[in-house]
């Protein structure tokens, strides 16, 4: 067996990158070990190789590295992490190394963190309704097992509470199965991570959860690998162990900022707002690692969380995310300021997979039409409110006033619920009907007549 070679000719360090010269036979995307003068180990990956030189991104950052005395080993394979059922219950760093005081589980299964693209033909179209117990989600933006449904939030809004509530309450109606939760934190503060860990602990699911932390004080470049390590474990658990995995990724905006930082260190041509042109493809390589496989038992459901800078939904991060994910749960500042929890915006929120996961035999026959009608009527409320702001409420027609009443009730009764409150889908739809019953019968043009017959009850609504 020949000796392994360490290279010491660094021609430069820039941001999270080091440039290593005089190399030979180094593969693109290979994993790299970097040891500083004191022997401390860092991990990196090659981004570019030619006959002389390799460009390496260092996941732990380059702070404290110098061109002299740094030794670099090219390991000759891609970044892998061990995967095992026994990894549940533990806390890891972004590279999948335990940071809870105990050693790594001993297993012979190693998986490449970059995964492989799922063949679209091998996917199973997601159809199983997940009851989250939150009316705004279950009723109008249904989460489906195998879906990727992000939460678009703004700074200070309760996205973490909502995600924790989903993790705690999520149930499948058709079977008594519980979720495995994998939580990956990128660039968030420790208290956010603590909140999730506590919440998982209180609901007794921590033992079958795994937590990957790359907190605000970790080097930003580590955030780029964190969701990938988390999803690698998720894929193993879902597709090899047949488990149903809920992956929460927070905060994807921090992830994207790390990517921007890396791109600018490489001197790449930026597209919008300084983000690299490949942000879409890069995000897709994270988000598309969700779903179900034909003939497989398990599933990966993703709930990425991202904060929209200045609440701007057209910012590249939410924008490109929305193009990849199957809908989005948008939190609205105005509702939040009114003190409504969860402040889930009625109109811009959407679940693309909802149509196939609801209805007779899944939730209830009237579900789709109730949701469509609530959306349409609430859209009208928004228009009338805009009008009322100009002409004054007194000037509105009687019907418009009824709509305003409906709007308030919708927000205060349907949307608003307690952090501990777990509503069944029946309860959610019944509340929905109570709201719709505030409106005249003729206004319910999206609902079949027989359902109106069955559920419309103006007397109960006014009571």
């Amino acid at each position, binding site marked *: 067996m*020949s*000796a*392994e*070679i*360490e*290279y*010491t*000719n660094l021609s430069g360090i820039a941001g999270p990158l080091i440039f290593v*010269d*005089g190399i030979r036979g180094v593969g693109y995307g290979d994993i790299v070990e970097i040891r500083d003068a004191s*022997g401390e180990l860092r991990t990196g990956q090659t981004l570019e190789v030619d006959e002389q030189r390799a460009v390496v991104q260092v996941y732990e950052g380059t702070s404290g590295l110098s061109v002299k005395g740094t*030794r670099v*080993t090219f390991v000759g394979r891609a970044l892998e992490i*061990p995967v095992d059922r*026994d990894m549940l*219950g*533990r806390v890891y760093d972004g590279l999948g190394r335990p940071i*809870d*005081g*105990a*050693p*790594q*589980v*001993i*297993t*012979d299964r190693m998986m490449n963190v970059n995964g492989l693209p799922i063949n679209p033909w091998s996917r199973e179209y997601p159809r199983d309704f997940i009851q989250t117990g939150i009316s705004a989600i279950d009723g109008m933006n249904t989460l489906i097992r195998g879906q990727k449904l992000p939460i678009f939030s703004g700074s200070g809004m309760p996205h973490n509470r909502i995600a924790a509530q989903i993790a705690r309450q999520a149930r499948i109606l058709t079977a008594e199965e519980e979720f495995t939760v994998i939580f990956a934190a990128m660039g968030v503060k420790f208290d956010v991570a603590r909140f999730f860990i506590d919440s998982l*602990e*209180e*609901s*007794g699911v*921590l*033992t079958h959860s795994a937590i990957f932390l790359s907190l605000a004080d970790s080097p930003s470049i580590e955030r780029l690998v964190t969701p990938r390590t988390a999803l690698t474990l998720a894929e193993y658990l879902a597709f090899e162990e047949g488990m149903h995995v809920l992956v929460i990724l927070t905060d994807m905006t921090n992830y994207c900022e790390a990517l921007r930082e890396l791109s600018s260190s490489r001197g790449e041509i930026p597209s919008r707002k300084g983000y690299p042109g490949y942000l879409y493809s890069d995000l897709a390589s994270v988000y598309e690692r969700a779903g179900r496989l034909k003939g497989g038992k398990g599933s990966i459901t993703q709930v990425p969380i991202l904060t929209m800078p200045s609440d701007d939904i057209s910012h590249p991060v939410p924008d490109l995310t929305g193009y990849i994910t199957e809908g989005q749960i948008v939190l609205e500042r105005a509702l939040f300021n009114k003190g409504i929890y969860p402040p889930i915006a009625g109109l811009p929120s959407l679940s693309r997979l909802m149509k196939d996961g609801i209805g007779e035999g899944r939730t209830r026959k009237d579900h789709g039409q109730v949701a469509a009608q609530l959306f349409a009527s609430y859209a009208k409320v928004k228009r009338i409110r805009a009008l009322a702001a100009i002409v004054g409420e007194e000037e509105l027609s009687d019907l418009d006033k009824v709509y305003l009443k409906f709007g308030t009730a919708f927000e205060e009764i349907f949307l608003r619920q307690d952090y*501990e409150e777990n509503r069944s889908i029946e309860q959610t739809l019944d509340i929905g009907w109570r709201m719709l019953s505030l409106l005249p019968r003729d206004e319910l043009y999206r609902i079949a007549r027989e359902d109106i017959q069955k559920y419309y009850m103006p007397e109960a609504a006014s009571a």
Partner: protein
Amino acid sequence: MDNTSLENSIKRASEEMIAEIREKEARELGRLDEDYAAEIERFRKTMEAETRSRMDQELSRLENRAVLERKKLKLTTVERFIQRIVEDVMRGIRSHPRYRQFLMDAAAGAAAQIPENVEVRLAPDDGVYGNEIDEALRIAGDHRQIRIEADAAIGWGGCLVVDSARGRIFNRTLERIYFRKALQIRRKVLQVLQDRTEGKESVTR
């Protein structure tokens, strides 16, 4: 008008009124009492529910911790055990009959890939092999310069061969070999341990 009858009627009327007020009062009080009792009952129930959920939470927290701590303890114990075995083995490795040859081969193999100046770094305890390596390299190649140095950073053994002209270090230290193989070694040790425990269990049963 008869004063008395007027008086009487006023008295009667006021008495009736008083009775009515009293009755109303009593009714009101009764209702208040009931409300109050209901309120207390409600409060008690919420408290109970809250306490119960609090207790449930604490309980699952404890359960979670217990399970996890046990898992972690097990891993730590195994890890410590592996560490001890490895250290024991490494301490004794110099007296292994094949160690000298391993060292010679490692140094020579690396030096063969370096055309110019060569520096071989050895663990301080391996100083005795210095001259022998130096000699072997001189015979094998035509390096311009050969230096043998002691390196305190090498503990277990093996060597580093430095090609300063090209900025390369050929690492053949035992530390690095172990580092590269750690996963396999840990797996092996664990396997042995598991086989043992299973074997023992079947005997005791």
